[in-house]
């Protein structure tokens, strides 16, 4: 049997404080649900509103009812919800299918858990969501012509 390489626990007792009952992934999942519900509410209204074009009614064009700053801001919020929900959803699908779990090892310090793979995945997905959000903000602020 190969010798297990042991390392000193440099964090000591303070390392116990790093866990917490709920990790950031739990809050990410809550936000995933909230953005999903918000997007669903918008989507159900969106189906009805866009169906009005069958009657020649286009309330979202310039001069229409929905072409007002408050609705443009709400549209940006929907875009933000999509950006977060999409990238976090990719992360959830990867974790659900077992691709972002990592391999188990002997429980010898320094420990390796699935968080060693999941946490970088969460951070990278959030960075991608932030980039998409920045692109959307650039558009919504009217900077893109």
């Amino acid at each position, binding site marked *: 049997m190969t010798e297990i390489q042991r390392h000193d626990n440099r964090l000591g007792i303070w390392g116990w404080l790093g866990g917490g009952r709920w990790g950031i992934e739990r809050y990410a999942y809550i936000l995933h649900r909230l953005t999903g519900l918000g997007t669903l509410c918008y989507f159900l209204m969106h189906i009805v509103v*866009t169906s009005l074009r069958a009657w020649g009614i286009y309330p979202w064009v310039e001069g229409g009812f929905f072409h007002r700053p408050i609705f443009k801001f709400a549209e940006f919020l929907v875009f933000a919800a999509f950006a977060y929900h999409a990238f976090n959803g990719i992360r959830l699908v990867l974790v659900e299918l077992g691709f972002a779990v990592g391999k188990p090892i002997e429980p010898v310090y320094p420990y390796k858990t699935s968080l060693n793979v999941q946490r970088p995945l969460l951070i990278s997905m959030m960075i991608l969501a932030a980039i998409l959000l920045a692109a959307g903000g650039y558009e919504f602020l009217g900077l893109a012509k």
Partner: protein
Amino acid sequence: MRETKYWTWHMAAGVVILFLLGLHMLIMHVGGITHLFVPYGGEAVSKSNSLFRDGKLFFTVTYILFLGVALYHGLYGLRTILFELTLKPAAEKAITFVFLVVGLGLFGLGTWAAVVTHAIAIAGARG
């Protein structure tokens, strides 16, 4: 096993929506940067650009596909959240029935609108 099947469809629908809604967002909401499918210039959601896309069979078909997949994904997600309350079986059946009716109704409305606007756009293009 049935709920596992529905959950698998839910995840698969999410992946499909990623591409379709991603394309939709690139055209509609980041159109000032991408300028995709806006031959008449201006806003992507202008009437002329909307009619242009509605006249394309590709958009009509993908709108209908997108509509069905998104309705399933959204309503099944809401159903899952509600079912975590561990309701009585009768309440769960009622919720499932209501979501099915609402989903099919909105799918019918959206599909009808997509087909009608496709016909209108083509008729307009022919003059």
